[in-house]
Every structure is written in C-alpha cells, then in structure tokens.
C-alpha cells in the first residue's frame, strides 16, 4: 500500500525536452522518474540539483523543485541544500566533465562527507554541450576536436575516485538497460549517505557508440557482470563463467573446468568494507574481464547532514545561551551608569529602515 500512488508522469514537467533524438539521457530520466514515483515520498520534498552540461538540463524536465546551477558546483550547492534541510530528498544530476573535471574538488569532498544525496553521474566520456572535446573519462589516445592527434593522458575511473574518497555507495548501470538502471537507482535511493551511480551514457552526436561494445544486447551476459548482493559473481550466456581470487588478483574461470565448481566462485558483498576487492571489481575492463554492473559497494557510515543535526541538538540540550539577548549580555560585560553619562541612542532611531 503506497501513500501517494505516484507514477513517473507525476514527475515530468511541462517543459519541452530538448536532448538530441536518441540521446541516452531520455532513458536515464525515465528511470529516475520511475524511481522517484516508487520512493513514495511527497512530491514537494524532492529537489533536483544539476551543474552544467547536457545532462544538467535535467531539472527543467522535472516537476519537482529544481536548481540548474553552474559548471561543476552542483555537488557543493546540493550539499548546502541537504545540510540546511535534511528532510528533503536531494538528487544531483551531473556528468563526467561537470563532476570529474571542473567540479572534481566538490565531488570528492561530497563523497568524503557522506551527505545523504543521490548523485547520478552521466558518463559519456565526452564534452557534449561544447560540441565534442575530450573529458577526464575519455580513453588515452582519444581523438577529439581538442585532441586532434589523440589524448596523451589517462582517464579517471569514476568508481576508483569514489572509493578513494571513502565513498560508501557506488553502482554502475548503462542507459540502454532501463530496467537495470531503475533497479540500481532504487538501491541508491535507499542508501543513507552519498550514493554515486555511474550511468554509461551514449552521446549520439559526439561520441556515438562509445559504450556499444559493453552494451551490445547480443553479448550482454558475456561482457557484463551483474552483481547481486549475496550471490556468486557468475556471468556468461551459459552462466558458466565466474570470478575467483588468485594470488590477490581477480581471475575469470570456467565452472566445470580445472575442478572449479560454483562454490569456488566469489560471492558479492557490497555491504562489507572490502575496498580492495571492490576497487578490483570497478577496474575490470574488457576484453580480459566483464564490466561490473550493479551495486558494487554499499556500506554504512555516519551521515553528515544527520551528524550536523545531532550535534546541534546535543549542544542545545545543555545550552546556557538560548537567545540573542542572552548572548549579547553574556561573558565580560560591565554597566555604565555614571552621573555624567547620557541616555543611550538606538542605532536605528534616526534612520529610515522601511
């Protein structure tokens, strides 16, 4: 029994959606709207904050409270929103340029503080709104308008950055798999703390097909490992491949070969604070490994906005100063009341303050 009976439609605004036809953003927005409807939280308590970039137009297409801010600063502005009012459900919509380049500092500090926000990181490995320059997630050698001879720098792996910043939640999904994206977003919404969901997103104009090799539905089960809590890390069309740890490294094995059985396969525990293994899962790349999808890490830790609230309550429970008049007269004060003293003149007396 739900309280509000919302559908995804209740979260769509009247504004015309202006992403390019075929853009991966449409699918992600549908998934977010469906997730919000399912959360069964009053519509008025949602706030969607974005930075700058194609994906950051998102708030305009939502019927909730929204704030389309400036490049890279969505994480910082959302941190202010949530700290001020922890009762709100705050979503941050951002991209690889917005959060990992110009807003990198705010991104890592948001994650470190563990403010209870849901951050959706649209990763299309390109700058779309400025028409095709390489981003911090573009692969080494990528040829773009600003790297006509190929980039000479390595890219960020967003999950690595999140875990390196002491992140408590990281998940990965892909735009074309709406059902899975929605499942992952639902998990992220439940998480108490900063949840980062990297959505591999296709830019049809400037980086078309960048995730095709991973996303190809024909090879989905061979190239993607769908991680599920408490279940063995098995993939492959025949569900015959799995991951084991050998000499501290992940290794793909075939069940039934070399005496490997299902019992030998690693079981996924996103709730355990097992940074090493979780980073190894995040780093898995084709062709040697499948790409890890789903919730990779989801651990409990103190939540900043709640701690801030608690600290104020704790201090206020034994406070000596309860209002400004008391504060103004606290500490070292003295009274002047001599014969030669005049009556006080109020500062605002002879001035007009409408």
């Amino acid at each position, binding site marked *: 029994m739900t309280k509000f009976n919302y559908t995804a439609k209740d979260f769509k*605004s009247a*504004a015309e959606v202006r992403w390019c036809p075929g853009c991966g953003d449409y699918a992600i927005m549908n998934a977010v709207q469906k997730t919000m409807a399912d959360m069964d939280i009053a519509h*008025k*308590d949602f*706030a969607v*904050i974005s930075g*700058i970039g194609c994906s950051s137009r998102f*708030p*305009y297409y939502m019927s909730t*409270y*929204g*704030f*389309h*801010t*400036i490049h890279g*600063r969505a994480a*910082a*502005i*959302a*941190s*202010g*929103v*949530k*700290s*001020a*009012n922890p009762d*709100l459900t705050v979503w941050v919509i951002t991209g690889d340029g917005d959060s990992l380049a110009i807003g990198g*500092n*705010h991104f890592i*500090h948001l994650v470190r503080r563990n403010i209870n926000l849901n951050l959706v990181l649209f990763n299309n490995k390109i700058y779309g709104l400025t028409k095709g320059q390489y981003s911090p997630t573009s692969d080494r050698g990528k040829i773009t308008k600003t790297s006509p001879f190929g980039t000479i720098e390595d890219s960020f792996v967003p999950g690595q950055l999140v875990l390196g910043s002491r992140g408590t939640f990281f998940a990965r999904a892909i735009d074309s798999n709406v059902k899975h994206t929605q499942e992952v977003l639902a998990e992220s919404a439940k998480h108490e703390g900063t949840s980062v969901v990297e959505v591999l997103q296709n830019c049809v104009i400037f980086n078309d097909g960048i995730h095709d090799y991973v996303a190809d539905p024909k090879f989905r089960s061979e190239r993607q490992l769908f991680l599920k809590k408490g279940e063995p890390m098995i993939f492959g069309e025949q569900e015959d491949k799995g991951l084991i740890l050998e000499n501290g490294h992940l290794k793909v094995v075939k069940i039934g070969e070399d005496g490997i059985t299902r019992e030998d396969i690693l079981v996924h525990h996103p709730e355990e604070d097992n940074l090493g293994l979780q980073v190894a899962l995040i780093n898995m790349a084709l062709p040697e490994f499948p790409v890890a999808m789903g919730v990779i890490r989801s651990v409990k830790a103190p939540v900043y906005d709640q701690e801030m609230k608690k600290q*104020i309550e704790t*201090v*206020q429970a034994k*406070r*000596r100063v*309860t*209002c*400004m*008049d008391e*504060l*103004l*007269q606290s*500490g*070292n*004060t*003295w*009274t*002047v*009341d*001599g014969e030669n*003293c005049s*009556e*006080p003149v109020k*500062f*605002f007396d*002879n*001035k*007009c*303050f*409408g």
Partner: protein
Amino acid sequence: MKDAKVIELEEVAIRFSGDSGDGMQLTGTLFSDTSALFGNDISTFPDYPSEIRAPQGTVGGVSGFQVQFGKKKITTPGDLAHVLIAMNPAALKANAAFMNPGGTIIFDVDSFSEKNFAKAQFQTLDPFAELKLDDYFKIPVPITSLTKESLKDLELDNKSVLRCKNMFALGLICWMFERPLDYIERFIQNKFGKKSPLIAEANLKVLHDGYNYGMNMQHATPRFIVHPAPIEKGIYRNINGNLATAWGLLAAAEKSGLNLFIGSYPITPATDVLQALAERKDLGVKSFQAEDEIAGICTTIGAAFAGHLAVTSTSGPGFALKAEALGLSVMAELPIVVVNVQRGGPSTGLPTKTEQSDLLQTLYGRNGESPLVVLAASTPSDCFYYAFLAAKIALERMVPVVLLTDGFLGNGSEPWRVPNMSELPSITPRKATNPELFKPYNRDPETLAREWAVPGMEGFEHRIGGLEKNAAGGVSHDPENHHINTQIRAEKVAKVVDMIPELELVGEAEGDLLVVGWGGTYGHMISSVRAMQEAGKKVSLAHFNYIKPLPKNTAEVFSKFKKIVVCELNLGQFASYLRDSVPGFHYYQVNKMKGLPFSVHELVENFEKILEA
C-alpha cells in the same frame, strides 16, 4: 621615597611590541579590556606579521598591539604611541616610526644584547641613537631576569618561565596607568586554573611582581592618570569587528525567524567570522567548513534555496573565487549575504594588513550585468548593525548583499553598548504564500523583489537556475526578455535606496571642504575633521556606509561644498565610482596603500593643502 611623577592625560596610546611568540596580542587585549572595564573609551589595533612564528628577534617577526584610551570618545587607536613596550631590539626598530615625539619607551634591557642587535640588523651597539630616539624617556627594565627570579621557586621549565615575561610587562603597565588587576587575574584563572594550576600561579605571580616593581621603582617610572569617559548609559562589552559581524547575522536570523547557515573557508583576516558562528550551535547555527571558497558560497546558495538565512565570509582572494557563484545568486535572485573582510592585495598581497581595495571588485567583479547591494561597516561595533541590515535587505528584497569590512575593523575592538533585541527593526522574508498565483519571477511592483518558495512547501514546486528566465520561470533566450530582465535586476538594487537613510554630515551642511570617506576609515576621518573644525576650518565629513545604492541625497549634499576630497585606502576606487554615479563634481583624492590605517595627522595635512590649493 620620592613620589612618582604623575601625568594627567585626556587620552593615551600604548603599543605593546615583541616577537610574535611573546604574547603581545594577549597582553594588549587584556590591558584594553581592563581599561574598558575601568570606564575609558578605547580603540585597538593589532598589527602582526603573516608568518605564525617568523625568526625570533628579527624585525619581520615583530607583533604589535596598539590601544588608545581616554576620558572622551576615542575614535582611533592613535596615530603615534605615547608609550612603547619593546620586548627586544627588533620591536624597538619596527616601532620607532610610530612613536610620539618625546614618548616613553619601556624595554627589556636583558634582551638588548649584541646578539639581538645583530638579529635586528642594527649597525651599532646603540639602537636608540641609531633610531634617533635620544630625547625619549627610556625606562630599562630587566624583564627577563626579573621574571626568572620571580619564578625560581616554582618547578617550571625555562620555556614556560620565559612565556610569563609578557605578564611582567603587563603588571608594570597596569601600575603605571592605575589599572586594577582583578580582571586579568580572573582571566588567567579561567584560562589556566583548571588545566595547569602551576602555569596559572606563575602568570599571576609575575603579573603582581611586575605591578610591584612599578610601585617600588616610583622614582624611575612616571604614572599616568586617564579618567573614565562620559559615555552612554547601558551594558557594555568589548567587541571586535569580526565578532560583531557574526553576532549581527545571528541577530538577523532570530529577527527573521530563520535558521542561520554559514558556508565558508578559512582565510585571513575573515576566519574569525566563521569561527564565531561555528561556536553558536546553541543558537542552531549550521556551519559548513567547505573544501574551498567556491564551495563556501555554493553551499550558501544551496542553503538559501532551501530557505535559510545563508551567509559566507571571506577576504579579497576568496571573494575573487566566489565571483561566478555570486553571479548565480544575482540571476537566481536568492537572498545571501557575503562578508568581505578586506586585506591588502592583489593576489596574496598583505594578508594580515588592512586595505579598501576590493570595492571595485565587489561592485563589478562578475561576468555580465550583475548588480548587487553593497554596504560597508565603519567601526568594529557597527559591523553588528550593518551585518544585520545586510541580512534584512537580502531577505526582504531577494537580492545578494555584500558587506565590506576590513582587517582593521575585523581585528580592532572597542567598547560597545549592547543593544536589546527589541531595538532592532523587524525582518520579513518574502516567503511565498499563494501557490495559485506563484510564479518564480513574479515581482512585487514596488520593490521588484520576487517571492521565495523553498523545497518542502507544497504547491510551489518550480525550477530556477543560471540561465535567463521569463516570469513564469521558463528558460528564455528571447532578446526582449533579457533586455528587460537586465534592467529589472539593476532597478531592483536601485530601489533598495528606500530602505536606507539619507547621507548625514558631521559638521555644517555647507562649507569650504567636504571630506568623503567610506567603511573602516571612519575613526581616523572623524578625528581629523574634528581637528580641522576645532581649528575653525569650514570642513564637514560625509562618511558612506551605503555604497550601492548610494543615499538619495548624495548629490545634493555634495553641491553645498566648494571642494570635495575622497579619502580611501586604495588608489581611488570610491572616487572613480562617485565620478560615475554622482557626476558633475571635482573629486580630490587622498590615497594610502601601506597596509595601515590613515593617521589623523596625515589626513589633516592633506586637507590643509587642498584648502589652500
């Protein structure tokens, strides 16, 4: 025994000076508080290096604290000190230029050694002659050895013993100026009593021994009497500008019924504002120490979007970093307050010194047509009222407001008659009330302020952002719309003029010279103008607290004077703003870029020159 020479004074300035580790700031503060409690009016000026501990004994490492107190209203810490306490030769060298001719110099003769002369780069073994201080009244006191002697029976290590030297000097000065010791005793007990009773005992003993030394050496030390000042009745406290700013913001939060949020990043000399508010969890303050200056203002904007009285504090370099986000608050029309405690620039500049050189940055330092309200406080204690007003204007007019103070105001202190909260005007935030009629950029026809609807309010769901919008809140690239909105945003700021008082003069409404100043120079400006007036000159002072918009009657006031001179601690930023905003007058200029306040003397000299010109 011969009686001490007793000198009765109207006002006296004392400068405490030593190594930055010698505790001179504390010594100065304790003496100032004691004088304020005694009933004198005071004004203080801490002057310290930007290094936490520069090499010992060098001129670069000298930390000073000047306080002026008197039996009448004191408006400046004094141009020149009547009494200097020099803990070493470097302190003497650093401060020689700030001594009143014939003043008294008390120095720690133990530290006046060949080694220390060399550290302070004296060429000879006679620093007084070298600095041309021959005819000053010099009182050599073996402060180091007497402190050691005083503490020889306590089991203290040498370092701790030497750290008590400042108390000896303080005790001696208290005797010279007839200050009771009880306030200082209480302070020492509170600070050390519980944690380290031995340190408390040592400090108290040295303090008393310093006091008794003065009494016993009466033949050698003059004694000064400065009677209490006749001031307004009321409850007083000593307050510096940064604390007053923080409390003014707190007062505005209480008046407006909103929670206070501060998102900030530590920066000299503004850090105290953040610290003072972080301390006030008891009053519900949410303080967020951000990862950088940009996040400081961005969290503030977020908190304003969420319905808080949201503020951020900074100094020049940080203000520069906040520029883009400040533009967002102009565009989104969210009520935030930015406090800029100005310091010497450009770049890192003179972090611990004062300057007024961020005025044009504040007025214009953003992309696009980006007008906002600018106020400037003029004394340490009136930072309280201008911070309060900044918040009132922001909340009632949905506009970002910048409050300019400076290092001199922020760190300087003065006694302040504490107001009752009932003395302050009400603050009515423009919270939206009718969801049927609400549109994000619907405006009050009088003030042009939009309404404030915050997440959590049912029926007001809307989107804002940095893109240009139409009245309904939709993104609009319509040329006419942008043209009109640009004008509206400017007009909205201009209309704040209805909330501010007319420009008032100190002195006659017409005359030969109008002295114009703004912000933190007030104390020196008024002292110099009064000095001119007492000399029979037709000089008045117009000191500005409202920079944008300017008071309505500015041009009218200006028109009644033969000459106008604009004085500021920069190359003429307010003067050029006036040339643009109040045209038709010739503005003379007095400018100073030394990281120091004006001196009354130099102002008077300049005014006389301009009168004669």
